[in-house]
């Protein structure tokens, strides 16, 4: 018997070929992530001063003088948190409804299809829609309008992410709760949410990440200002727009600060996702594997 590998046999060559393609793809993806991080860090870090994160823009800020982008940091946190909160309030019931009452039904399929369509709509369209809505309600560009627009952007992502998680709910577990005389609602609220909590949180954070990084939807709705908003009716700055405006500046110092703003945005997203991973792993304790 000869077990020696015949390297030039056709099927081995095919395997080698496919493996090489997969490796190349992996390298491209990993290195572009590295490149993105390297770019924002190398360009942003030198101008990421303490003032940047603790000051609002002063008089000459947009000419490269003193001040910071605290207005945009706070604004973005307000916008994304508010949008995420509204999106949760709407998403969780939809996802639970789909699981409890519309499993494998035509109606459930329509809801999922429309959510997928909404997911695919570019956020500038939500921005335009939010803008139209704002005008018709007599609102001006404000934190509230921005939050509503972001909630619309986040809703389909969050709902579908939760739906996909909740769909993986083990049937045995659902039946165990039903056998005790639970209503479907009790199963959804007391058992499904508990079992699927880590996944639900992941869905929420996915949407939060999308929301905090979205520039187009807040462009018309939230506006931009150098002040920190004190009420829902104030316009507000946001980090993606801070990046956008500063990168378009003719002053090199201001352009560098654009990278610093991008770095801050990235750090916030990273912190939130690590934080949520940690939270999810703690909440994992009771889930049935």
């Amino acid at each position: 018997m000869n077990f020696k590998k015949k390297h030039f046999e056709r099927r081995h060559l095919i395997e080698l070929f496919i493996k090489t393609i997969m490796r190349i793809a992996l390298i491209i993806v990993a290195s572009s992530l590295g490149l993105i991080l390297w770019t924002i860090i190398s360009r942003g870090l030198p101008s990421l001063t303490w003032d940047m994160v603790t000051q609002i823009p002063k008089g000459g800020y947009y000419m490269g003088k003193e001040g910071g982008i605290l207005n945009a940091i706070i604004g973005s946190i307000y916008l994304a948190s508010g949008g995420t909160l509204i999106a949760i309030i709407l998403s969780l019931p939809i996802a639970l409804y789909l699981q409890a009452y519309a499993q494998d039904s035509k109606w459930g399929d329509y809801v999922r299809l429309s959510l997928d369509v909404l997911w695919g709509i570019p956020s500038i369209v939500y921005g335009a829609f939010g803008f139209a809505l704002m005008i018709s309600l007599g609102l001006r560009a404000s934190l509230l309008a921005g939050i509503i627009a972001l909630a619309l952007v986040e809703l389909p992502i969050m709902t579908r992410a939760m739906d996909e998680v909740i769909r993986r709910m083990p049937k045995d577990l659902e039946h165990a709760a039903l056998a005790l005389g639970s209503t479907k609602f009790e199963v959804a609220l007391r058992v499904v949410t508990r079992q699927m909590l880590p996944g639900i949180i992941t869905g929420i954070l996915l949407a939060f990440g999308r929301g905090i990084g979205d520039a187009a939807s807040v462009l018309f709705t939230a506006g931009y200002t150098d002040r920190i908003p004190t009420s829902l009716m104030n316009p507000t700055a946001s980090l993606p727009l801070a990046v956008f405006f500063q990168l378009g500046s003719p002053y090199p110092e201001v352009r560098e600060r654009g990278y610093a703003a991008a770095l801050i945005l990235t750090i916030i997203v990273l912190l939130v996702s690590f934080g949520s991973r940690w939270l999810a792993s703690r909440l994992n304790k009771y889930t049935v594997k």
Partner: protein
Amino acid sequence: MDAHIQVKNLNAYYGKQLALKNINIEIPKNQITVIMGPSGCGKTTLLKTFNRFFELTENTQLTGEVLVDGENIYNKDVDVTEVRKVVGLLAQRPSPLPMSIYDNVAYGMRIHHLRKNREEYKTGVKHYLEIAGLWDEVHQRLSEPATSLSIGQQQRLCLARGLAVEPEIILGDEPTSALDPISSQNIESRLLELKKQYTTVIVTHTLRQAKRLADYVIFMYLGELIEAGPAKEVFSNPKHERTKQYLEGLF
């Protein structure tokens, strides 16, 4: 005979396929009834019609009546959660809820509002864990996840959880088939202890278990009820040829 469950002209379909053919049977109160028969004979299907679990499978249909305490549980105005409160189920494999040991037992009492305050819940949980013979093993780790228990302990937890809802009937769908011999024996002795207070219906595919547990026996074959009667009679003197063959281990 004092019948707790009465089945009248019951036919069950999976799609077009007839799984139960015109079943008529009365199940005696406060005894252990064992439904036996070769796989695919419809024994689990019959059991599932008693707590309205049959309808959880897609594309199923049912005609006929199942009466519990004389009331047809398939009537239009029947609340299915009330049926399942009275008719508890011990499943084939234990599936603890994603919560602590304590909360698993308290769950049923909570959804049915069976206790008034914390203290009452505590005593309730203790009571049912004792009945299930689990208290001594778990009383110091009540807040730990239920999944931290062994499979055998989990099945006893599921028994405690089911009893905490205060049912009158316990259904067991091969409740020991996933367990090791010692845990199986443990569950069996619990069921024997409980039979004075509960009507118990067990599906099993092991003849020896049937002989150990049964007061009353139902033998099914290919969706039909072949023979039913007190265990002693059926085991010692089966009337039907098929039953005799099954008891002799011919199929």
